[in-house]
């Protein structure tokens, strides 16, 4: 285990982290402001990936495909909000779970009908397909580096949007006390829709950028959704800062767990047993992290309100 490999794994962890952050940022706002659980958030991620794959093929350009696909994913989010979810804000969480579970079934089958059951391949654009040597002797895929840069740019954008603009002020106010904001005369419905569009767009962006790294397939949304839940629980419901810290934490723990735990067990177990125990523990590492955080801070690291 040398230093260069550790640097590479750290970058991989951060890259997974910013991807999770794109998912978690929108979802945590929806939780915080609307007190609503949306299982179908992963569907926007999947839709974003599939649309990007299609438009990339159409325009023969990944960047153009992404630019078209992400607003479309946001539009899908707005339609879902207006048609199905709007009536659910005031229902109890069980109703929201059930209805958005129904949405997942619908979207998964719809995607299967439109694009078929075979996973699609998405290739990164030409100028990002190579390797970059950040540190001499440690080449790193340029596309993954680009994902990190985009993720950090989005985090900065959200920081400005939420912390420095009027819309952001209303979003924060809605997250901390919805009734009071409404009583002060702010019409909260368009803000809900805007937040939903933002969340769906970010999920679509995450899906688009995940395309060249993972497979574009039905069910990809749920895998990342559950990781996103872990991120949000660790970070604290409704907190963008919590989402960022939680996402990077989960990304790093997951990546290093997979590399270091089997190696660590090899120190005192025979190699095959060590591989087995290590990979088992590695697959559980982020959940153990979550349980540990909850044991000390049941509301997460940065609870947004209450």
């Amino acid at each position, binding site marked *: 285990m040398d230093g260069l490999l550790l640097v590479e794994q750290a970058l991989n962890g951060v890259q997974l982290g910013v991807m999770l952050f794109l998912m978690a940022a929108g979802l945590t706002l929806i939780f915080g402001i609307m007190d609503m659980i949306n299982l179908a958030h992963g569907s926007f991620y999947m839709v974003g990936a599939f649309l990007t794959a299609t438009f990339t093929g159409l325009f023969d350009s990944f960047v153009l495909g992404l630019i078209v696909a992400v607003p479309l994913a946001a539009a899908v989010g707005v339609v879902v909000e207006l048609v199905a979810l709007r*009536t659910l804000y005031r229902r109890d969480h069980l109703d929201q*779970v059930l209805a958005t579970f129904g949405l997942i*079934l619908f979207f998964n*089958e719809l995607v299967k009908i439109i694009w078929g059951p075979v996973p699609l391949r998405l290739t990164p654009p030409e100028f990002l397909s190579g390797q970059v040597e950040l540190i001499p002797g440690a080449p790193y895929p340029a596309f993954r580096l680009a994902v990190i840069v985009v993720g950090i740019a989005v985090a900065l954008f959200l920081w400005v949007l939420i912390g420095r603009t009027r819309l952001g002020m209303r979003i924060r106010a809605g997250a901390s006390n919805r009734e009071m904001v409404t009583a002060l005369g702010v019409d909260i419905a368009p803000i809900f829709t805007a937040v939903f569009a933002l969340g769906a767009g970010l999920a679509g962006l995450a899906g688009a950028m995940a395309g060249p790294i993972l497979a574009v397939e039905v069910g990809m949304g749920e895998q990342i959704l559950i990781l996103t*839940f872990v991120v949000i629980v660790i970070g604290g*419901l409704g907190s963008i800062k919590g989402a960022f810290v939680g996402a990077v934490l989960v990304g790093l723990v997951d990546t290093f767990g997979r590399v270091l735990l089997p190696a660590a067990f090899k120190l005192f177990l025979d190699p095959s047993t060590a591989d087995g125990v290590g990979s088992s523990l590695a697959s559980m590492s982020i*959940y153990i992290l979550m349980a540990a955080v909850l044991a000390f801070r049941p509301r997460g690291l940065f609870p947004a309100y209450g």
Partner: protein
Amino acid sequence: MDDAGAPTARRRRVVHGVLLALLLLLPPAAMALGEPFYVSLATRILIMALAAASLNLILGFGGMVSFGHAAFVGIGGYVVGIAFVHAGDGSAFLGLLPGTTNGLVLLPLAMLVAGLIALPIGAVCLRTTGISFIMITLAFAQMLFYLLVSLRRYNGQDGIAVWQRSSLPWPIDLNDRVSFYYLALAVLVAFLALTHRLVGSRFGRVLRAAKDNERRARALGFHTYRYKLVAFVLAGAVAGLAGALFANATGFVGPSYLRWDRSGDLIVMVVIGGIGTLAGPALGATLLMLLEEFMPEALDGLVPGLGEHWKIFLGPILILIVLYARRGLAGLIDGVPGGALWRHLRPEPEPGKPPRRWRKRR
């Protein structure tokens, strides 16, 4: 159990009696018709009904929206599967426990193991409420899913083919489909009877009080956390029993038992059947599994190739049920005098808004 009036209670007793009589008559009828397949299908439905009923105990009566209940079903199934693997090659689990196919050991062991795993998970999850609780139960179920996928000794992703059924003392024989059916029915009825007693007991009343208003229940001096944890562990143990039976019924156990959508299916069964009612989860399990069995074929009859995509209809149906028919199938048992269907389809008043008849009076 909602505290229904006397006529409703009588009607329920009659309907439950009729349903039970029909279930008792099903195997001879199916065998007489030369359709033994239906006995096996009904057995699987009864076992899933048991799993759904165990979820109903915490979801319906305790208000805990657990999105990870399938994990305990899977654990129960894996107890049978792992014991079978070790019985097959004569090795021992962790070098300590020898394998077995003895049902008298395996069924209680499945309950014990599922309950023991439910204990720490419940202890952590119940520290939170609301959305966090839903997400954390889902996350822990996923953790167990990935753990089982990573166990190469037990075929990881591919799961275990359990081709020898658990042996039980005479007259029960799981290799005989009729005998297996009656065992599943007996277990389900016994658990429903237990649920009925439990919900009416002091324990059940505290649980329901915590569901309605946790702060008030605590102010009255009840440690609601402990009551909820006991219910969570009990529900997990019974789900484990259902899993052990299901592994026997299908001859297979794999990580797919614990997948997140299985947990979703269990919630769907409870809600479309009628949440917090005695017969509801069983009715919901029946409806969902019959749809799963027959809808693909029926749809293929309409438009060839549509069958495999039947869930594209299930999704919107679920949304409509949530929006308009929250009392579920069990609501039909109670019947509503006068315009039953209309009343049934009417959405519940929104929380925070008084029912219409109160508003009119003001």
